[in-house]
């Protein structure tokens, strides 16, 4: 277990170094001048020179990178060129919004997906199965930006049930989360529903389940206590991947509903050539991705006893 953690930490560290290096290079390869982006078209050369000097952009690239690494090792990823705020506090602020959205979406997806899959297994009705699978493919195929627009127009503009744009951190903020949350949940919900249906169908045919039937156990109890638990291993993988994707790439939904999350922060920073924020968000997203994969790895044994002795934990 300790070895596993050390391995993961070293892996994460090397990934972050690699990513920071590539992002750093990319930001300097593109034809851009952060100083001009900051100072506007009216700025003269002496103003631009002064800004470049203050930002350290007048130094050679390797010096800038080494300075960045030095600071990053002390958990300081710098300040935004545009707002002059610390990048880590900017990320923390925006991540709160994205995390709320992602958690909300994944909760809806889990409840909807597992309920539909379980219902299909419980009823054991071919018609329902034949409906769930194509419907899940259909919903999983709708582009999220299209779905977002439809949902916002129907529930926001037409029925006027929920606000269609903006965000509030208070209690009233929940209403702002509903439409984007539902939009974002559709894809993972469709995947989970399909996976649960297919997995439960296979598990329900297995010998140990037949044994439970032979013992006279009720269908609902068998599904709830035995079958679903086994089906959870693959569902967990989907949830893990979806969660990582939602936490790092809910950009379209954030854009459509004007939610100030991490995706929008990243896009805005690219448009403004705000290099410290670009690099900060990329590194943060990579860390989140690795962390979630690690958590999913750790959760497997809870659902599958065979994995308790898996190589990865030795």
């Amino acid at each position, binding site marked *: 277990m300790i070895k596993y953690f050390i391995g993961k930490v070293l892996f994460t560290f090397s990934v972050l170094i690699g990513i920071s290096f590539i992002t750093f290079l990319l930001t300097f390869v593109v034809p851009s001048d952060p100083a001009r982006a900051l100072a506007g078209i009216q700025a003269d050369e002496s103003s631009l020179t002064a800004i470049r000097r203050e930002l350290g952009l007048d130094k050679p690239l390797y010096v800038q990178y080494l300075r960045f690494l030095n600071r990053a090792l002390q958990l300081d990823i710098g300040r935004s060129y545009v707002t002059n705020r610390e990048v880590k506090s900017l990320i923390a602020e925006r991540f709160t919004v994205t995390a709320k959205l992602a958690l909300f979406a994944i909760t809806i997806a889990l409840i909807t997906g597992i309920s539909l899959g379980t219902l299909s297994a419980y009823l054991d009705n071919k018609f329902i199965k034949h409906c769930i699978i194509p419907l899940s493919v259909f919903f999983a195929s709708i582009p999220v930006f299209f779905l977002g627009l439809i949902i916002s127009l129907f529930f926001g503009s037409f029925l006027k049930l929920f606000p269609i744009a903006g965000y509030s951190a208070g209690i009233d903020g929940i209403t702002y989360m509903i439409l984007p949350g539902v939009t974002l949940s559709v894809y993972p919900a469709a995947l989970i529903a399909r996976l649960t249906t297919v997995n439960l169908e296979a598990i329900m045919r297995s010998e140990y389940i037949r044994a439970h039937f032979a013992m006279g156990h009720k269908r609902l109890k068998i599904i709830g206590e035995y079958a679903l638990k086994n089906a959870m291993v693959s569902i967990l993988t989907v949830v893990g991947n979806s969660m990582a994707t939602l936490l790092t790439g809910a950009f379209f939904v954030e854009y459509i509903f*004007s939610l*100030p999350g991490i995706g929008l922060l990243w896009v805005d920073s690219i448009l403004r050539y705000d290099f410290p924020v670009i690099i900060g968000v990329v590194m943060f997203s990579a860390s989140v991705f690795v962390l979630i994969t690690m958590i999913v790895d750790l959760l497997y044994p809870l659902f599958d006893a065979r994995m308790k002795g898996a190589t990865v934990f030795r």
Partner: protein
Amino acid sequence: MLRYAYTVAISCLTVLFTLGFSIPNFAEAEESVTQSRPERPKHGGFFRDSVLSSVTSFDPVKTLDVATLRVGQQIYQTLVEIDEHLNVVPLLAESWETPDNKRWVFRMRKGIRFHDDPCFPGGKGRCVTAHDVKYSFERLMNPKTMTVGSWIFTDIVLGAKDYFEEKTKDIKGFTVVDEQTFAIDLIKPFYPLLTRLSLYLCAIVPREAVGKYNQDFGQHPVGTGPFVLDKFVPDQEIILKRNEKYWEKDLNHIFLPYLDGVKIRFIREEMLQFKEFQAGNLDVSDIPTPVYPSIVGETKELKSAYSKYQLKTAAALEVHYYVLIMTKDPLGQNRALRQAINFAIDKNAIIKGILKGRAKPASGVLPPGLPSYNPLLKGYPYSLELAKKKLDEAGYPEGKGLPVFTLVVDSGTISEAIASAIQNQLMKAGIRIKLETTQFNTLIEMAVKETAPMFRLWFAATYPEAELFFVQFLSGYYPPLGFNFARYSNSKFDELLENATQAMDEQDRIRFYREAEELVVSDAPWIFLYYPEAAKILQPNVMGYEFNGLQLPKYKYVWLKK
């Protein structure tokens, strides 16, 4: 009963009398009737507005973006401000004088206090003095602050350039005469200084706040304005609260502002903003171009479905154009070719088809709304015949022998649609264009490095002065020194602009500006496209919302009818 009849009769007579003198102009009639029964403004309530882009940092010396300006101007104040009719009026300065247009002396109002803030002893805001003006202006010229506004004083104020280049410790041209008097000495006469001082970049800040908040000063604004920052969650919400100690009064001697506060939401999309307005969640909204014709009629009134709302329109102080780089052949050396391109573009068709009528064809550089705008300037009205004639004159009959020009535009639905329409229109004259789209900042880089012969730009004034538009044509302002992206050079033009900025008399200034504009238009370093029209739609209960070409709201005059 008799009394009632008498009142009705008097009212009818009043209305008839008023109408009798103003029938030719119904707007005037309506105004005079309204003026005869003015409703007294009421205090209270929160105004709900939104911004379409991020509010970045309130630090005046770092602010260029419109969203931050709109909010920041409610908190910070400048020596002078621009009124609804685009005139310069006193704000923190109560008066000024300039004997020779070279020395400007500003007399400050007494007793104006900074907002209460922990940066002051006891948390009580102290009075603003001339020392604060000197401190704020020197801060604007300090390269260590990463200022984006050094251009305001660099070439005009005595010693400003040396200070910016860190050769001196203070600016000779800024003098504190006494606690309430501040003087600016210029290198040479420069009348637009006054309008420049209305810029948010020139806002007066207290040194205590800069010292206390240091790097985070941009998130802790401490000004003298009618509102104080109550809550700022970037890209989420801004709440401004009424400054209870604000000094300004209205004509009825009622203290401003009327509102208890302003709630500003961040909504990225114009269409979403409008939908939120329709849902009653916002008090004001822009009108998205795609839906504009269904909301606003041709005579600029709201259509019946929207008649309960209020409409405000103004000629934006903005010009949209394509820059033609004059140092590149064949465009650079061939004036007739540049004129041919200008004649070949049907601006009216673009305005009608793509901009849904929300603009006027640009006849020159200066947009309507500026005092120096020349309504008689013809510019280049669409004429395929004249375009072909000019092409002959240029040595390219029917476009034969012309290379394919690359036109770079910023990505965006309207920008790309206009470029595509222009590509088709120029094709009719035999001029072929290849389109490239890119992100705005990259486009500017390309303009600086001369990597494209033509590219789209627009220029929106932040203060109402023709000089701001014309600086783009000064010979010494080629990039990277300045933003004369066309690399236009004409000594006669330079001289005219110099004369205009030095003239004390407004009529003289206008004359010089107009002559300068005629020169530029005739040399055609731009493809002059259009002057946009700005519009806002307001809820029926919103009163006192001033709107002009600068499009910067002044919440201090806004009040809400119950």
